[in-house]
């Protein structure tokens, strides 16, 4: 094999293109629903209930929840993209197209994760546009916003990938999002500051990784956070590293892929 680096680059870009084409082809299932759902959140929690709740961390409630809602859509969509795409590829057996090719495991992982990041960011952008219809959004630190949203999408794409590797039937790809991801997201400070919680539950909340992502993103957007930003970035990066190593280990072992 000559010019192996070039071969790998083309293979990676092909997989990314395939993944992006996939979620764009089915945009009514992938891009539209989060826009509709998040619009409802803004109407109900922001416009109807927000004025009664009052200020949160010195900000109007609508402004306070907007970053969390954007982040929630990024988390759920980056996860959903990889878990459904990779599991479908396993289920329909077209994952074999990649397994027989010279692509190394790391590139297969990178291709799927990039697809997940792509959908997470695209949905995040759409939800941001929806948020702008309801409130003024100012960006306090653009670099932090871009960094946190990208790292979060990466982390949950990896989570979706691992879920898909272990999944044997379609039920298995909905269990984690329903019973783990959704509760953690709702309890991750999307709608409230953890300062409102009793001391005990504040400590419990600190064990929720999503809290760090939501707060880091909120800091980038609004300049307010319950968590020190450097600690949040460190924790997110640590999780990404751990899940990347686990994914590569599972691919090398062939778990769920090679008998």
């Amino acid at each position: 094999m000559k010019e192996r680096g070039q071969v790998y680059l083309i293979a990676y870009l092909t997989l990314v293109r395939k993944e992006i084409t996939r979620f764009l082809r089915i945009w009514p299932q992938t891009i539209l629903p989060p826009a509709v759902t998040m619009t409802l959140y803004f109407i109900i929690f922001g416009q109807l209930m927000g004025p009664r709740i009052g200020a949160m961390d010195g900000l109007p409630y609508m402004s306070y929840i907007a970053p969390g809602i954007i982040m929630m859509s990024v988390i759920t969509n980056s996860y959903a993209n990889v878990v459904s795409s990779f599991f479908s590829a396993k289920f329909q057996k077209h994952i074999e197209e990649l397994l027989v090719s010279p692509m190394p495991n790391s590139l297969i992982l990178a291709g799927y994760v990039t697809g997940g990041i792509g959908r997470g960011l695209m949905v995040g952008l759409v939800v941001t546009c929806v948020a702008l219809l309801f409130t003024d959004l100012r960006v306090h630190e653009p670099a932090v916003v871009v960094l946190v949203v990208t790292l979060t999408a990466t982390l949950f794409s990896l989570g979706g990938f691992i879920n898909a590797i272990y999944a044997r039937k379609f039920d298995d790809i909905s269990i984690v999002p329903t019973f783990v991801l959704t509760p953690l997201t709702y309890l991750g400070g999307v709608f409230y500051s953890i300062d409102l919680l009793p001391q005990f539950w504040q400590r419990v909340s600190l064990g929720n990784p999503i809290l760090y992502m939501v707060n880091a993103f909120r800091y980038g957007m609004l300049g307010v956070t319950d968590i020190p930003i450097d600690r949040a970035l460190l924790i997110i990066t640590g999780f990404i590293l751990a899940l990347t190593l686990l994914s590569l280990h599972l691919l090398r072992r062939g778990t769920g892929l090679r008998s």
Partner: protein
Amino acid sequence: MKALEITDLHKTYANGFVALKGIDLAVEEGEFFALLGPNGAGKSTTIGIIASLVKKSAGKVRVFGIDCDLDHAAAKALIGLVPQEINFSQFETPFQIVTNQGGFYGLPRRLAEERAETYLRQLGIWDKHDQPARNLSGGMKRRLMIARALVHEPRLLILDEPTAGVDIELRRSMWEFIRGINARGTTIILTTHYLEEAEALCRRIAIINHGRIIEDSTMRSLLARLHMETFVLDLFDPLDEPPDLSPYATRLVDPHTLEVDVSREQDVNGLFVRLSERGIRVMSLRNKANRLEELFMHLLGERLPQEEAA
């Protein structure tokens, strides 16, 4: 040069099933090679290991001299696989499927698209190139998988039951296409349940049973070992009882159909002399079973008691 060299290949699945018990196989470059065996014999496991879809338990696999343990990516770049089961996305178009596969092997997009068009045209499915693959007929899906396997122009093409469920007319046109690929220098390994297909296409043959190679020789030498052939004769005039055509053994299937056994030591000319002497007019003549099929059954039958004893 050997296109494929397998040494002492073993495979035991997680559930304890021993699929391969030490296989040795060598396929020369440019050969058209048949790997035959009954269901569960170990054919697909062997192919799966070569194509890296199945992990081996022990042994060596070399593709054009490249040790798969040392540089699997380089070995995989030389192989094209047409699997037994349909394994492409039903929602993508044939053009996307073949072009993307080219990309996975490192072909620049434009070249992959050119090749995709070439092979989809050659295999007669260009008309459907922009329709979702789920809309293709069974035969078209099989041809799509051949186009996909060829897009990176592999030096070794492995076809695992490529014509399963395909009607005879299409099967024959696929044979012609595959023959052409082989004539241009591509080494081909074929597994099939249609033994006539193996006989028509392949020059060498290996038979695998219970995870072991029980036969590995040229098609010619294998067929030469066939002791007996049975011919079916359609008669013009009805007969009431089997005629005496000694030394040929006969059986009357119905008044117009006669079966005659011809051994290796006998010739078919002699049979026609005996038929003429009896005034029996023959409308047509055919083999009762495919020659390779008879031999295949004979070999499997021969080995079975040994395997059961083991």
